[in-house]
């Protein structure tokens, strides 16, 4: 509560210098941490983007399907190496840490996630997963629309945070401006000549009465304004958090360590985006995918250990996705080409762990690809409705049955 008041105070103080003040008009009227309808105000979603198209068949391995080994003469993972879940499927041996969490009931595996009319382009398919719109082009992401519609105060600069050098489509909103933060170190203005320069900066970057018109002007001004204020506040807001345990020294490890700090510092953040990759393994797949899966698994374990040590593990749901799985048959370069459906992971202390959906058939392929068995929008609907307690139909432009691992 003290922290929330501090943030409002800081923003209100800076608004004195502002010229266009619609940003600040409502600042004092709203609490910084509103209760979402459904009473889930403490809950956070972490979205992990496995960039480049992760090979689903070598992530959740169908060791009980003989066709798998026929399609994967060199890349197939031997049944004895697979971390068995049941007689049909198991995990890639690099996912040992995640398997440990699965065995404790903290991991839900959604098999065969995909969408109708799958696209094999990285870019279009990434856009489809991020916007949740397979049939048309839209400018906001599904998380962005959730943030817009969740009644969050636009005055909070950290409603959503993208731990990435570039703002991903999934976090793009209309009402809420999501900061992109590559890493905390160096996130801020280096020039600090004197207070008068800082004050002048705050006013000048919002120059919107310029003698020209540009479709980008308002966006530039808003982001510059938020960059200055947010980067000044963030280190102070995070300073009280002491991480527990050791994270892997990988980019994903660093991102998740910062994510835990943001969660633990209670900034009102509802969604955090992190990314990991590249999984685009057209050639010599095994060493690359092995390394990336191990990094993923170990970083997630460290993340939940840290969260648990601060009592936050039940507040945080983590969801992985990738733009597509890969072709069932390996290619001639010990790699795999772009495919279709693939598994997703949902992780957290607040879910019912287990295996959801059915594994796609390897007998009936769609031009060499597996066909999806779960529409990924059902997973999003589950999160919006059961995790955040908000109606999902508007955000997803349709009604998708929720799965049962939450609520």
């Amino acid at each position, binding site marked *: 509560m003290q922290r929330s008041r501090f943030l409002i105070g800081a923003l209100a103080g800076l608004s004195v210098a502002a010229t266009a003040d*619609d*940003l600040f008009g409502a600042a004092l009227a709203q609490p910084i941490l509103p209760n979402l309808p459904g009473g889930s105000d403490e809950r956070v979603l972490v979205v992990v983007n496995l960039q480049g198209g992760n090979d689903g068949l070598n992530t959740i391995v169908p060791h009980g399907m003989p066709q798998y080994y026929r399609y994967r003469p060199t890349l197939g993972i031997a049944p004895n190496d697979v971390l068995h879940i049941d007689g049909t499927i198991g995990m890639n041996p690099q996912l040992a840490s995640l398997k440990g969490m699965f065995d404790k009931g903290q991991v839900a595996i959604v098999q065969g996630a995909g969408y109708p009319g799958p696209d*094999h*382009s*990285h*870019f279009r398919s990434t856009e489809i997963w991020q916007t949740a719109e397979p049939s048309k082009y839209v*400018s*906001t992401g599904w998380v962005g629309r959730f943030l817009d519609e969740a009644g969050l105060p*636009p005055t909070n600069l950290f409603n959503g945070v993208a731990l990435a*050098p*570039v*703002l991903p489509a999934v976090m*793009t909103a*209309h*009402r*809420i*401006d*999501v*900061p*992109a*933060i590559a890493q905390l170190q*160096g*996130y*801020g*203005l280096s*020039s600090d*000549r004197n207070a*008068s*320069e800082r*004050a*002048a*900066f705050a*006013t*000048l970057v919002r*120059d*919107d*009465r*310029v003698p*020209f018109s*540009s*479709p*980008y*002007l*308002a*966006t*530039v001004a808003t*982001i*510059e*304004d938020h*960059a200055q204020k*947010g*980067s000044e506040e963030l280190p102070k807001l995070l300073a009280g958090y002491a991480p527990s345990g050791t994270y892997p020294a990988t980019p994903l490890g660093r991102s998740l360590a910062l994510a835990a700090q943001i969660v633990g510092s209670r900034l009102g953040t509802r969604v955090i985006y992190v990314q990991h990759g590249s999984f685009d393994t*057209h*050639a010599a797949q095994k*060493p690359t995918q092995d*390394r990336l899966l191990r990094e993923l698994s170990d970083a997630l374990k460290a993340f939940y250990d840290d969260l648990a040590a601060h009592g936050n593990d039940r507040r945080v749901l983590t969801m992985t996705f990738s733009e597509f799985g890969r072709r069932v048959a390996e*290619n*001639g*370069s010990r790699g795999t080409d*772009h495919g279709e459906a693939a598994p997703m992971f949902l992780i957290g202390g607040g879910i019912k762990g287990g295996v959801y959906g059915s594994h796609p058939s390897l007998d009936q392929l769609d031009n060499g690809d597996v066909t999806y068995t779960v529409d990924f929008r059902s997973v999003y609907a589950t999160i919006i409705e059961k995790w955040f307690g908000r109606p999902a139909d508007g955000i997803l432009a349709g009604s998708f049955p929720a799965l049962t691992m939450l609520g």
Partner: protein
Amino acid sequence: MTVSAPSTFRPPGSLPTEPLAAYAGPWNARLAAHLLRRAGFGGSPAEIARAAGAPMNAAVDALVHVPATDSLPAAPALIDDAEGRPLTATPALPEAPAMMAGASPAPDDAATSAIVELRKQRNMLRREQDRANVTWWLDRMLATPAPLQEKLTLFLHGTFTSSDNQKGIYGLEIVDQNALFRRYALGNWRELTHGVARDVAMLKYLDNARNVKAHPNENFARELMELFTLGIGNYSENDVRESARAFTGYTFRRRTGEFFFNAAQHDDGAKTFLGRTGNLTGDDVIDIIYAQPAAPKYVARRLLEFFVYSDPEPQLVDELAALIRKNDFNMAPAISTLLRSNVFYSERSYRALVKSPVEFVIGSYKLFGVPQVNPDAIAVLRRMGQVPFHPPNVKGWDGGVQWLNTQTLLARENFASGLMVAAMQTDNFLRAASAANATELARSLAQTILQGDASPASLANLEAFLDGHGTSANGALSGENYEERLRGAAYLTMAMPAYQLC
């Protein structure tokens, strides 16, 4: 002010009646600076004055008629390894089994350790070569007498992407690819595409070197249509599979690093591609692609988004596409027409693009007369989101609103701040910016840095900053504090939204 994602960044208003007809309105420093920003990397105050002093057509002629660039270094020096072997060739090192398994070598295994050490050195040298390559190109952008050629080279690099030090691309391979783009910058882009299909860096980057009859690899064939020439929706998945077969056998000789058509690995069976059936080769596929109505439209749209404004009207795309088709993909006439056109000089086009990080950095160097690119610029550009020769992925840089987020804008502001404390580099500019009082100095900075694109309120704010308002300790602008205030005010001017726009 809270709109962070409008659904389109097309400027409001409508097209001029004849958008591509020659602009005949007033010509001044504001529009000359606009031309130099868009068709090059900005200009020094002297270059802007020179372009403004000549008629518009002469200013465009000077860009389109590419002058000799012999005075520039043609390529960076090639770095060899300690034994004098090139870094490009497949290393003659034995594979270390322990490394392949991802484990660290046993400490007593001297042979393995030696290999690990050699590989480490090689990787270090490869990174050094990569930095030399990037710095060489940035320096060339800064110094070239042919900025349009260089700007188009950047455009083509962002279209037909490959990435240095990735997928086995080492040495000067990316620089050779860059030379191909430069050679064809104002030439025929269908012929360029034939060259791209034979380019070693591209053969590696999109795996076509591994595309063989028994197991076609679709990576190059797909991106050729999706990202390089047609755009999604203008071909089927079957066309991808069939054209991948047509490109089988397009590879390179490992020993010489030269293109090689391996007939034994080429699938010479019948293929059906975009309605044509026959024993098609990759070159046939390229010619069929460029005969599609979608091909000139794709080029036209990308050019307009790069040079004019985002999300251009279909009518404008069609008009430029017709011109490109009429000239059979010889690009000089269409580009020349565009740079002289009504739409290019319209108010809707003015400051309607976001400066790319490269435009921001090189443009600032030119503005302040920095003679050479600081090697630290690579790290700065990385934080801003654009290192040449290192596109984020095969799609290249999205540009526009994608350049704008809190992280990248902080990086821009910190670069400007750093430039203004680097006394040596900007002395000449700052000496020239002398003025009698704070009012004049604020006006002069806004004029030089922003072509006057600042509001009266911002001018008053700059003036107040220069005159020490808010710092009672230091007092009004004086000989004592002149330089420090000037540097601070120049930084603040560069932080203003107009300076982020192109």
